[in-house]
């Protein structure tokens, strides 16, 4: 059980402030005394009222200076209460209160009675004072304006105060569409005792009154509502055929399904249609829904992280690749927003450079963020080095995008090697570039260790071998020196065909004859006459571009295939300082050392000891067997199947003479 015993000082203070405590029994406390448990009231003296809310201080347990407000303050602020709790833990003491004299009444002042609120509610109206919903007790000075607004679906027909004694009527001003009614007691007439009447009616089906609350919600959502071209105001009525048009403020976007009315009949939603650019949302109540709850929201418009520039497009074009944004070709001025997907595809024959500085799995398509200057890279799509993908984030704006491709590793080049055609000038630059000083100032790095070979071919290569011009790369080092990038590490060099026609057309073309094939940069080789006489010899060099060794293949039309192969070292290498990776030869045993022998065109020499009497009348080295008819010249008949009527003696004569040799004319 507890109680409150205000001190004498407290009693005095309250008295000085024109107020007093009253016991739960309603007895004014004039001296320090114990007040029983119950509802303690604090009342202002006549002509005074409280300013703010009086408080009472207590101690609870060991905690001091706890305070609580008096409650149940009356409208004229002259009465309030505090409930003294039935607990021994509470010890109440000081009361703090401020009062003032009640100002003289202003003529025409009106305090809203509860009956006025009831009448408005019955008529589906609400009363506002300066945009604030009025309640019973709200005071309207003569300068204040009463504003009535109808609930959605209603319109105001009439509202006003009527003098019950003389019948005078002070009507509200009704807007043409019944969406508002206003009244200002500008004549300061004493209307407090006047009767208040109001009348409204239901709007047509599908109509909606855009309320102050709706307007406030719209403004809060950073948007504006229009009816047609007219900016909507509070309590503007939208008929069924009127279009609601929401326009988002700058930097804001609507989101579909977050802008809608509620249909009071079905309970479902009547969504606005959000435009493609999400800047507007529109709705027309085509089916006469009972529009109730209005919801509107916007989100911050995404900020473009980058705008596709001409430099971007030039970079991709120069890198033989194409860029798309969300599946469409990137064009100048395309804005990139978070979530947009950029996809770069290298054209046939090219892949994106695998930048050793980029993380694994990324390709050399990069840009720098404006904020911290850090790089970001396109991701490689799977194992495909020809495709890079980047999804724009909100990490911040970034600068121009740079793409770098390399020609697809030619099938004709082994491993990850590169073959370049270089000029003397380029070679000098490469020699200078191979030495790189590390950023930390340490010992120079010689990227020349990635040079495999350097040769000087004694002819011009076929331009078809040039895939493109590309930076010379020494391992991970991009020298930025453009050179012709070749598609093969072997050159197939046809040396043409040599047609050898026998001059005799018989065995004399072979008799005591030697065929020697003389080749550029190669020892001469002897060929079997069977592959040469009345045949065509073809020669082809397969030159290794790593070290200048060559395989010489010699083919003959006799067999249609290779009849002789020679391995030679053309001795065309250029010395360079790289001992470690200089390629090993096939072995001294199998390679003949060549060199420039002055021969530019391959040729065959036939060296022959001529027959002395090849056309001699009595030179008859050829054995034949057939009838002699048709033959002219000298012949020695070894055997003859003579069928004749000659006598035996004559036949002997004939055979003897034939054996000795005859001349047939």
């Amino acid at each position: 059980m507890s109680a409150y015993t205000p001190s004498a000082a407290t009693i005095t203070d309250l008295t000085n402030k024109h107020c007093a405590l009253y016991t739960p029994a309603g007895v004014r406390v004039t001296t320090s005394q114990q007040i029983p448990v119950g509802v303690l009231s604090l009342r202002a003296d006549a002509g005074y009222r409280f300013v703010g809310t009086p408080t009472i201080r207590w101690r609870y347990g060991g905690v001091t200076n706890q305070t609580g407000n008096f409650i149940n303050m009356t409208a004229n602020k002259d009465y309030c209460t505090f409930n003294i709790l039935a607990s021994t833990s509470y010890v109440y003491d000081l009361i703090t209160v401020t009062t003032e004299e009640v100002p003289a009444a202003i003529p025409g002042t009106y305090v809203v009675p509860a009956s006025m609120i009831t009448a408005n509610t019955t008529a589906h109206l609400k009363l506002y004072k300066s945009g604030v919903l009025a309640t019973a007790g709200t005071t309207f000075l003569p300068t204040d304006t009463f504003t009535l607004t109808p609930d959605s679906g209603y319109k105001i027909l009439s509202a006003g105060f009527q003098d019950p004694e003389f019948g005078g009527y002070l009507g509200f001003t009704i807007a043409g569409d019944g969406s508002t009614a206003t009244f200002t007691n500008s004549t300061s007439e004493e209307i407090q005792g006047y009767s208040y009447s109001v009348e409204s009616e239901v709007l047509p089906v599908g109509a909606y009154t855009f309320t102050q609350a709706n307007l406030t919600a719209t403004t809060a959502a950073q948007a504006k509502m229009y009816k047609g071209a007219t900016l909507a105001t509070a309590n503007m009525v939208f008929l069924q055929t009127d279009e609601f048009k929401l326009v988002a403020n700058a930097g804001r976007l609507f989101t579909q399904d977050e802008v809608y009315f509620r249909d009071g009949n079905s309970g479902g939603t009547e969504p606005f249609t959000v435009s493609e650019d999400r800047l507007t949302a529109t709705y027309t109540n085509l089916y006469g829904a009972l529009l109730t709850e209005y919801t509107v929201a916007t989100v911050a418009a995404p900020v473009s992280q980058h705008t596709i520039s001409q430099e971007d497009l030039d970079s991709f074009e120069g890198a033989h690749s194409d860029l798309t944004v969300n599946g469409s070709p990137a064009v100048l001025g395309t804005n990139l927003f978070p979530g947009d997907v950029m996809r770069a595809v290298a054209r046939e024959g090219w892949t994106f450079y695998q930048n050793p500085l980029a993380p694994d799995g990324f390709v050399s398509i990069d840009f720098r963020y404006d904020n911290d200057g850090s790089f970001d890279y396109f991701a490689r799509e799977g194992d495909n080095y020809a495709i890079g993908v980047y999804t724009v984030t909100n990490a911040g704006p970034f600068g121009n995008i740079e793409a770098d491709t390399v020609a697809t590793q030619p099938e004709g080049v082994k491993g990850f090697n590169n073959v370049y055609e270089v000029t003397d000038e380029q070679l000098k630059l490469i020699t200078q570039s191979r030495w790189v000083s590390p950023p930390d100032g340490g010992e120079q790095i010689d990227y020349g260790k990635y040079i495999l070979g350097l040769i000087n071919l004694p002819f011009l290569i076929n331009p078809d071998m040039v895939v493109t011009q590309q930076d010379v790369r020494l391992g991970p080092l991009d020298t930025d020196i453009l050179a012709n990038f070749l598609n093969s590490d072997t050159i197939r060099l046809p040396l043409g065909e040599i047609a050898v026609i026998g001059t005799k057309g018989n065995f004399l073309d072979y008799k005591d004859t030697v065929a020697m094939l003389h080749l550029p940069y190669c020892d001469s080789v002897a060929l079997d006459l069977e592959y040469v006489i009345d045949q065509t010899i073809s020669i082809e060099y397969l030159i290794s571009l790593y070290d200048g060794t060559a395989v010489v293949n010699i083919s003959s039309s006799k067999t249609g295939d290779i009849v002789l192969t020679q391995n030679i070292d053309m001795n065309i290498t250029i010395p360079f300082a790289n001992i470690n990776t200089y390629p090993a030869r096939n072995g001294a045993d199998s390679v003949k050392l060549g060199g420039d022998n002055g021969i530019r065109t391959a040729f065959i020499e036939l060296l022959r000891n001529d027959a002395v009497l090849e056309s001699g009348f009595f030179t008859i080295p050829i054995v034949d067997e057939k009838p002699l008819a048709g033959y002219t010249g000298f012949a020695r008949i070894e055997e003859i199947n003579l069928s004749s009527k000659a006598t035996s003696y004559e036949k002997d004569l004939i055979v003897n003479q034939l054996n000795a040799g005859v001349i047939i004319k």
Partner: protein
Amino acid sequence: MDLILYSISDSDNTINKTLVGGLTVNINLKRGVNVITPSIPLADIPGIDLSAFNYAVIPGLGRHYFITQVSNSNGRVWVLELTCDVLETYKADILAANSRFTRNIKTGDYFNTTVDMSTLTTVQQYDSNVTAFDGEETIILTTLGA
């Protein structure tokens, strides 16, 4: 029986001799004459030098003959000693008969045989139709690394 006298310049071992002249003389062969080597007496023919003939054909015997000797027996009678030219007489049979023989070289003969060869050597050169090494140069650099 006719005896046709000719003058030839071909060697005896020639087949298809060229017969020049052609003086036909009527003769009567004696009984028992050797047709291989007959002796034919001929009366002197005014204006004809019988010694100018060295070849004869006796169509009645179907044979060609060399006139091996011409002799005067009694001043007005000449005796021609004939020897059968079996090569010319039977040339049709000879030329038609299949035979194995040695003959001159002709195009298409690729026997591996022996002929008399000179110690001198001749050289024939056959050039390729392509000059690949044209005096220009190309420097090729090969490197390692993607």
